[in-house]
């Protein structure tokens, strides 16, 4: 589904990713762990189409050259990024934003757009599953939301859009243990044959709840070690230092 081959990324002439390669097959959950500044967020930004990076290498998503797709086209094809720091968008109602987003994606996929009632039914059901306060759906997008609410809102958007590849950029940071469990449940509910996940995290904590198929250690823009779920536990014990 996602094939990254020798990806190099620079920003303002500073090299961030360096010959980064990774394959994700349908249904797989990959975790990328790494210290601060190792290039984790850059990777998620580049995959979802953020501008401003100087990029070389090949990234193929579902048979298409990813770099030929605009940011919104990647969303249409099924890439979703749960932001590390979700933005506050004043004056934009959360519910209406979610509906606009879902219908933009559905339209691009040639599916029928949902009307207000169909959408409301869907969003209420998903919000309930995530224990996301329904009242917040009528507020301005992320404005005045706590850190945890913002993260839950990301997961809510993810479950509504039902993406093929979900990238979770440090979704666990700033979450208390209950919220962590709810977020993990949200992710696990999307785990299906065809849905894949790229989970970016500092800590092994989240991986207690979302069991990864593969764990990769990212250091200085490169994967230095890959393994199964047990690698995360080893990392937690030994620290990143031992891999440098």
């Amino acid at each position: 589904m996602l094939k990254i081959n020798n990806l190099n990324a620079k920003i303002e002439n500073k090299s961030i990713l360096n010959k980064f390669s990774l394959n994700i097959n349908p249904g797989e959950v990959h975790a990328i762990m790494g210290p601060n500044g190792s290039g984790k967020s850059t990777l998620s930004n580049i995959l979802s189409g953020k501008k401003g990076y100087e990029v070389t290498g090949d990234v193929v998503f579902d048979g298409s050259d990813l770099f030929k797709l605009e940011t919104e086209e990647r969303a249409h094809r099924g890439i979703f990024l749960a932001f590390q720091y979700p933005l506050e968008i004043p004056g934009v109602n959360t519910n209406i934003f979610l509906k606009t987003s879902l219908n933009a994606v559905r339209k691009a996929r040639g599916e029928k757009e949902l009307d207000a009632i169909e959408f409301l039914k869907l969003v209420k059901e998903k919000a309930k599953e995530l224990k996301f306060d329904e009242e917040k759906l009528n507020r301005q997008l992320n404005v005045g939301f706590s850190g945890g609410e913002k993260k839950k809102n990301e997961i809510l958007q993810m479950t509504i859009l039902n993406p093929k590849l979900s990238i979770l950029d440090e979704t666990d940071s700033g979450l208390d243990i209950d919220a962590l469990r709810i977020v993990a449940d949200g992710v696990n509910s999307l785990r299906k044959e065809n849905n894949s996940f790229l989970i970016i995290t500092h800590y092994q904590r989240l991986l207690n709840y979302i069991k990864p198929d593969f764990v990769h250690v990212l250091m200085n823009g490169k994967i230095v070690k890959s393994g199964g779920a047990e690698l995360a536990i080893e990392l937690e014990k030994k620290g990143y230092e031992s891999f440098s």
Partner: protein
Amino acid sequence: MEKQLKTDFKKTIDSSDYSQKEIIVKEKCLNEFIRSGFPSKKNEDWKFLDINQAIKSKIDNLNYFNENLPNELDPKIYIDGLEHNKIIFINGRIEKIDFKYEESDKFEIKDQFDNRGLLNNVNSLVDLNLALATKYYKILVKEHYSFKKPLIIYNITTNKISSKNINIRLDFDLKSNSCLKIIDYSIDKSEKNFVNIVYNFSLEKDAIIKNYKLDTAENDNIKYSYNNFNLDTNSVAENFILSLGSSFIKNEINCNLNGKYSSAFVNGIFNLDNNKSHEIKTSINHLNENTKSYQLIKSVLGQNTKSAFQGKIFVKSNAQKTDGYQLSKAILLSDNAEFNAKPELEIYADDVKCSHGSASGSLNQDSIFYIMSRGLNYNEAKELLINGFLLDVVEKITDNEIKNLIKNIMGLKE
């Protein structure tokens, strides 16, 4: 200019039935205008938008006599979906007054000249207006009467006029505990004229005036509007300005909070493209205790555009417990867009709460990326952000029906 003014002034006098008293006042104002002329950027109040320069560069041979041209009313221009009373100006002349929704003994429309509250010596443009406005109407709302429907003042210019100075003057007298909502709606099919509008509002205690100025039609006219308010105890003046269409427009508001617990609100939106220059200038004078003012002005500025907000809050020494607030924000969509803010606080009382703020910047690219990552394209993301930025101002409108009308006019989605 002087020769043209004098000739056109004589034509104006000859074609009307002004009283001798009125003519004397008008002559005085004319001479005052001739002495000072159009204000230029040398004048501090006009340093951001130089109207003298704008008129010189845009209008050839400006003339001041507003002859009575035959005009046809096109009912299609009326605002739909909102029952309303009407005053219709076409090319500066009143064509229709229709207050059919109101009880006829609850209001008066006077056209006698009254030399109280003339507003002479305010500035040269108000003098010019006084000298040349063809008719002087005063609308009086009697005590304890609230207008059932809003009044829409249509200000229409047609392609029959060009290089013309149009002067409109209306006074509003709101007796105690009365209420009136006015929408000024301009429809311009003309180009290269100078439209000069002066309103004078006088509010007795507990009266409420709401004035919504909508300048939305794309046009190449130069406009100036001066609103003066005198507010007695516990009265309220709510202003909303939607500044979009004209190539040059300055809205000026002077508000005297004379009575205790009186309050003034000024909310404004500039959404500009194509070389437009717009300004809002306010003077809110807190002259008594427990008076309140609130101002929120937002700009979205495209290529070669310029907006300015000059907001002054004056607090007299006896105006304790004053609450004054103003904020202006701008999004600059182009490197050559310009936003000017000049907040001024002049405070002589010691127990007051006054604040001001101003911020400008370009569209937040991180926000754009966030929205695009959810499937919206760049233009949709941009529109959503601008929409949200401006919606905040529209939400300040206290009349729901009018708020929805304005949202529709602006194409704002909730």
